């Protein structure tokens, strides 16, 4: 029974790994092909089946004037917008979440849970509902088609995630921890950043990871709120497509688009298994 279970487990894991990894292998091999190798016959193995070429990668860094598509600038734009918006969202979201977890708010019929739900509701709404208000808002303040405008919009999109994760996290941090800090002589701010925050690193990492992922992969708002001045990576990658699909450069750009997320996943995985709350209480 035990053996059968192990066997099934590993079979499943193997199949799943193949399912996940196969498209990546396909993309890696395709990114080194040229028009001939993609379109003439089915090929798999470099040097044997086809002659590998770096053309698919090279066009990504060449300027359009030299026949390239230049995704370097959109790449750094994406990094800037995602990181800035995630950072601001984490800072504001953590503070908001701490307040929602520890203090009781009353405004008419509105209570803490309603406020938390208000944050989350911004994510539950179909994004298209928000597109027109965002468009008008950005055009009114003159931030349409600018990095700053995108950062503002992304903060709105990412902060609910941070609030949501951190409220849940702080609710599981016993309030005796804060009270002990107060008794030991901290003021409420010190209690937060000296005691509660260091205990919340796992939560912060999870929240940060989700912010980065959702910021990085957003296509919709990046597409609607930018035109010519500023472009983000997802929009640029889609724009690579033309009447003759450039499979090689699409594969290459797809690979470098997911690369940061893979790195984030590896770093975070290590933290998630190491840092945990076990031992803060009891």
């Amino acid at each position, binding site marked *: 029974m035990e053996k059968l279970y192990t066997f099934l487990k590993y079979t499943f894991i193997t199949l799943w790994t193949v399912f996940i990894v196969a498209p990546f292998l396909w993309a890696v091999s395709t990114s080194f092909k040229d028009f001939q190798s993609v379109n003439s016959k089915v090929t798999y193995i470099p040097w044997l089946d086809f002659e590998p070429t770096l053309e698919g990668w090279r066009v990504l860094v060449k300027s359009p004037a030299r026949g390239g598509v230049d995704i370097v600038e959109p790449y750094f734009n994406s990094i800037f917008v995602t990181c800035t918006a995630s950072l601001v969202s984490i800072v504001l979201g953590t503070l908001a979440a701490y307040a929602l977890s520890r203090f009781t708010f009353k405004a008419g019929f509105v209570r803490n849970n309603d406020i938390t739900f208000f944050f989350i509701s911004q994510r539950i709404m179909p994004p298209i509902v928000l597109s027109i208000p965002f468009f008008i808002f950005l055009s009114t303040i003159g931030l349409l088609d600018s990095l700053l405008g995108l950062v503002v919009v992304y903060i709105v999109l990412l902060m609910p995630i941070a609030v949501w994760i951190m409220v849940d996290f702080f609710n599981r941090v016993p309030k005796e921890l804060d009270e002990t800090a107060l*008794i030991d002589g901290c003021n409420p701010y010190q209690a937060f950043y000296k005691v509660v925050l260091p205990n919340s690193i796992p939560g912060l990492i999870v929240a940060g990871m989700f912010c980065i992922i959702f910021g990085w992969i957003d296509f919709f708002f990046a597409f609607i709120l930018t035109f010519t001045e500023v472009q983000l990576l997802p929009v640029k990658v889609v724009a690579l497509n033309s009447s003759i699909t450039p499979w090689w450069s699409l594969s290459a750009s797809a690979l470098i688009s997911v690369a940061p997320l893979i790195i984030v996943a590896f770093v975070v995985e290590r933290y998630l298994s190491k840092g945990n709350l076990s031992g803060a209480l009891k």
Partner: protein
Amino acid sequence: MAKIDLSNISHSYNPNDANPTYALNPFSMTWENGKRYAILGPSGCGKTTMLNIVSGLVKPSKGNILFDEKDVTNLITEERNIAQVFQFPVIYSTMTVYDNLAFPLKCRNFSKEKIDERVKSVSDTLRLSSFLNLPARKLTADQKQLISLGRGLVREDVAGVLMDEPLTVIDPDLKFRLRRNLKEINDQYKTTLVYVTHDQNEAMTFADNIIVMDQGEIVQVGLPKDLFERPKTTFVGYFIGSPAMNIFESQVSSEYSVKINNIEIKTNSNLTKLKDKNVKLGIRSEFINVVEKEGENTIKASLTRVEDFGNFKLLTANMDNFVIKSKVDRELPISIGDINLYIPPEKCCVYENEKLI
């Protein structure tokens, strides 16, 4: 180290409702400097609320708190210089044991030498010296609770150390030693210690003074002996002592005696001024003796159960609808059947409306 005065304190968690319910009914009390107090009562009687009011985590609905005659009612917790230990260990899991113990001193900007000296001294007392450089989260539950305790004791100038059932997670052997340690610390530093518990043995062995609470009310304050021999209400009689006090419905029959089922029992209380003739007679099972012959103040009952606790025997006897429990010497030969129980008048407590007269 301070004298703590609680004057006309009361607290409700819903003060703005039409009919607020009170977690603490109005009371006044003084905790003398350097004494040990135990607050004893069943769960939900307001013990923790009282502690939180003293430490400033809860602001009382009414009344004032004074530390050495200085009104601290409106001061926030960090300004009160008080220590509180919770039921379950709270540690700063990202810090080492040393940093945990040093934290209250660091927050108050003590010099490094002073911090070092105090942490060493407290960690020696609590036998944590060998763990000082370990991350606090690596320790066992009772060691963590020692850290919590240590953080309370590390400040010498603290107004008082409040402990909310601090030894729940600690194993019995260590519990015993820690209680003695706390007493030593109290003798040495003259720290005012307040100890909340629902365990009467813990309260009795620890404190000079015991405060018994029930349903937000302070029912009796006194020495362990007073609580045991002269419980002020039937609640205290039930709550303190194991088994609980024997309490019988009875009628006043003459100046000094009451009748239980037509059996006349003499007491030492003067009952002439009572308006209500229906009273309750309370007597500890420790004071009831088995005698050979019927006589004055004896009750004839049928013994239904004998339990041997090793150091004593607990007899359960029935007399009509009354159940009488008596603790006797374990060597006393006893057999199931009719026995005579003697009730000494000087140990009888008479209760009118549940209150001692």
